[in-house]
């Protein structure tokens, strides 16, 4: 277990404009970071759609989630991961993502779940 058992993995599995879940997940991540809790963020399943380019939330009177996610590096949240299978299933290339996110699968994916003390899923 890393960093004295306080580390947190936030797993984001829902699309950007399905209710408030995506932005409330982001708020939880930013709060953890503000409290200096070691936090990693994993996008999987429809969560990977939060990172796809050309989003225009204004078309449905919603805040642009990709723009909101862009604050993550400013909060020093740099452990950002994206699940490879989820990208492949949705024909998304890792290079197209709006945030620098490390693609993970297999053992590396499993390790994320194993090496963080707590898991919060959204």
């Amino acid at each position, binding site marked *: 277990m890393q960093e004295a058992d*306080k580390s*947190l993995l936030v797993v984001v599995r829902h699309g950007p404009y399905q*209710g*408030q*879940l995506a932005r*409330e997940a982001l*708020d*939880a991540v930013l*709060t*953890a970071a*503000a*409290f200096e*809790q070691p936090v990693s963020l994993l996008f999987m399943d429809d969560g990977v759609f939060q990172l796809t380019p050309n989003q225009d939330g204004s078309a449905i009177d919603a805040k642009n989630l990709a723009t909101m996610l862009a604050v993550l590096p400013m909060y020093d949240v740099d452990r950002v991961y994206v699940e490879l299978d989820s990208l492949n299933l949705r024909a998304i290339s890792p290079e197209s993502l709006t945030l620098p996110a490390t693609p993970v699968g297999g053992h590396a994916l499993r390790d994320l779940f194993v090496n963080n003390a*707590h*898991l*919060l*899923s*959204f």
Partner: protein
Amino acid sequence: MKIAVVVYGSPTGSGAAASAYRYVSAALELGHEITRVFFYGEAVHTATALAAPPQDENDLLSRWQQLGQARELDLVVCIAAALRRGVLDADEARRHEKEACNLAPGFTLSGLGQLTDATLNSDRVITFGG
């Protein structure tokens, strides 16, 4: 063991609040400590005092209140999520110039820091999604 419980699911649109209630009751019966129950997302509706379910239906709000009072539970409703959805205490109603408030007694509005604090200070974090 110290257990934090996080609830996101709507009390009417999902089983989350009911499952969480049963889990918390069972954990207390077994002598464990519930550090906090944090209501986030749609789960903030669990704490509205204005729900008036028919008498033959499970009154989840009363059950949370009774358990909360009997066991001195820290039942925290995320303030940002609650304001967005119209669950306000008297202070917030005044601050936002609303005519009424509806946060049920026994619940507290507080910030997301309470969620972080709960994860930092608990042996387990159990999430009930919608």
